């Protein structure tokens, strides 16, 4: 489904990697590894089409990725949480869904927030949340997410132990439903289901 | 097909670099020749203007500089369009190489205009349509340079700068006409560019000086673009060869 061919990444004057390629099929997780600065984030941004690669090509279902169809299949979660500090967790979830052209009912959203352990904080503006709670709001998107391709940049950062386990479960469920995922993390996390393939940079 | 191929070949820095290197001395020489001829005609031979006295001789700089400042912006916008359409690396470099010279030309136009205005109109500056447009043009140049300087990544700087140039070039006629209209609506002309019927020597002197400015601008832009090329392409083999081989001897 997701193929990368002969990718090359140059940041500034540094060639981070070259000749990188992989294939990822339904139900598979690509676990990107590498030391700090190896180019993991850069690779992810290439895969979502925001950073044009210096050379090489990326295909989704056999088509180049610069298309609306690809983006309709993609769910990306970066370093940044993409939540508005002024809005409450609930408003954030609903607004994000509307802007991404997805259907999400209020009940579903409340349900998702409960799952990420934010019950009782739906109506508090996000600026008052702790580091980890903000991350949880961002992750709440994944609860109802049906899109097949998930790309997650260090999703476990700032989460406590319980939340890490919960998220690992969510990713497993996605893989079991035939989804694909690409993920980086420096923490040791056990994804219970699905085929995990590793790719080491640098 | 063949044309396309050629376009891409010359737009590639590896071929353009040596080509520019051989052309520079010619443009410098032409510029000097035109300049000397123009100065000789304009400063030594041309007669006194019966309305403006000898002060009119500023025209031999003022008009070429004004023309160049406008042409250079157009040329930069042209390069920007090529760059955004065909994604050629050369275009952004050329635009960046031209910008400082364009800004200097705009500045010279303002400076000489001001020095001309004081004796002719009794004021260094009036808010006339032409003058105002030229000032805005200078701002546009500076905006372009500030924007590209603020972006560190060369490729992104080229794209953003190109976009700005295109937006600017769409706006220049709008700005020009709006300013012109604004001015004429307001006041009867206390400012009158009394165009004396020009003596033939004056005309020739001015044209020669304009040629001199053209050649100068081309030469200096080529010089600058060669440095930019080395800097940007330093990881390519041709630059490494250039650096290890003959670089340092020629300029």
């Amino acid at each position, binding site marked *: 489904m997701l193929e990368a061919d002969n990718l090359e990444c140059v940041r500034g004057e540094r060639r981070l990697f070259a000749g990188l390629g992989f294939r990822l099929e339904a139900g598979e997780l690509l676990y990107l590894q590498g030391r700090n600065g190896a180019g993991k984030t850069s690779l992810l941004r290439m895969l979502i089409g*925001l950073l044009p690669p210096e050379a090489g090509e990326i295909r989704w279902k056999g088509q180049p990725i610069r298309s609306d169809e690809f983006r309709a299949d993609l769910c990306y979660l970066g370093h940044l*949480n993409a939540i508005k500090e002024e809005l409450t967790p609930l408003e954030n979830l609903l*607004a994000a869904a509307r802007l991404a052209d997805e259907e999400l009912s209020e009940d579903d959203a409340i349900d998702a927030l409960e799952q990420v352990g934010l019950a009782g904080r739906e109506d508090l503006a996000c600026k008052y949340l702790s580091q980890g709670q903000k991350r949880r709001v961002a992750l709440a998107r994944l609860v109802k997410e049906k899109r097949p391709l998930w790309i997650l940049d260090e999703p476990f950062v700032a989460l406590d132990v319980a939340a890490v386990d919960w998220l690992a479960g969510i990713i497993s469920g996605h893989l079991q439903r035939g989804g694909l995922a690409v993920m980086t993390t420096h923490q040791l996390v056990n994804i219970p289901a699905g085929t995990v393939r590793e790719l080491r940079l640098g | 097909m063949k044309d396309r191929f050629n376009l891409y070949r010359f737009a590639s820095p590896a071929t353009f670099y040596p080509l520019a290197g051989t052309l520079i001395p010619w443009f410098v020489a032409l510029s000097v020749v035109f300049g000397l001829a123009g100065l000789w005609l304009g400063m030594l031979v041309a007669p006194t203007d019966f309305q403006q006295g000898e002060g009119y001789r500023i025209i031999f700089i003022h008009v070429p500089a004004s023309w160049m400042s406008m042409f250079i912006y157009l040329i930069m916008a042209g390069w920007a369009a090529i760059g955004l359409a065909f994604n050629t690396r050369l275009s952004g470099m050329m635009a960046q190489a031209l910008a400082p010279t364009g800004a200097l030309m705009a500045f010279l136009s303002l400076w000489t205009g001001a020095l001309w205005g004081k004796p002719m109109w009794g004021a260094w500056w009036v808010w006339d349509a032409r003058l105002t447009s030229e000032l805005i043009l200078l701002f546009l140049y500076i905006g372009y340079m500030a924007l590209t300087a*603020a972006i560190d990544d060369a490729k992104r700087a080229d794209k953003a700068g190109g*976009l700005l140039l295109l937006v600017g070039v769409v706006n220049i006629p709008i700005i020009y006409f709006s300013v012109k209209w604004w001015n004429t609506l307001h006041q009867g002309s206390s400012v009158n560019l009394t165009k004396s019927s020009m003596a033939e020597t004056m005309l020739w002197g001015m044209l020669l000086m304009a040629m001199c400015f053209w050649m100068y601008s081309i030469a200096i832009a080529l010089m600058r673009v060669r440095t930019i090329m080395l800097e940007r392409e330093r990881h390519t083999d041709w630059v490494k060869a250039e650096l290890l081989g003959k670089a340092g001897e020629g300029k």
Partner: protein
Amino acid sequence: MFKIISAVIGRDLKLAMRRQADIVSALFFFVIVVSLFPLGIGPEPDLLRKLAPGVLWVAALLATMLSLPRLFADDHRDGTLEQLALAPHPLGLVVTGKVIAHWLVSGLPLALIAPVLGIQFDLSADALVVLTFAILLGTPALSGIGAIGAALTLGLRGGGILLSLLVLPLYIPVLIFGAGAVDATVAGLGGEGHLSLLAALTFASLGFAPWASAAALKIALE
């Protein structure tokens, strides 16, 4: 298409309401700048009447411009912009929505308060009407052109002031026709010509600006 645009407008307006300060302060900036002039120049009514259209328009330009840096910056900083760029519809539509929301928050209030300020400068009733219309017609162009500048300077340090460098020269036609409309009315010439030119500028820039801004945003996200 309209669904997306209205989703963006809805969200941005909600954010503006939540911040409160936003709407009120653009307005107060406008009011304060306009009121500074009599202090700097002196109280002669004749002089002030002559200045009024120019001063009001320059203040409107500055007030609009001041709110521009945040047009995309908040979304950029917190990662929302990435998500918008990854949504399965053209980014230009999103920008259109944001430009409209920006105008509703920063342009429209100016038009509503302008007549009051005009009275302070002793403008005639005719002139006040034309002034209001001119600001109503011209400010969307300011938001549109401004969006291009905001997108180009996004993420650059010193962006706010760089932005003004890029945008103010492009605002000049709006300033000239806007102030011209009022001036012409004061002089008894009728401001219709200027107003229709303003409308033309606004339409052109609203059609063109969102797509240029979207291209600039993609560059900023690379």
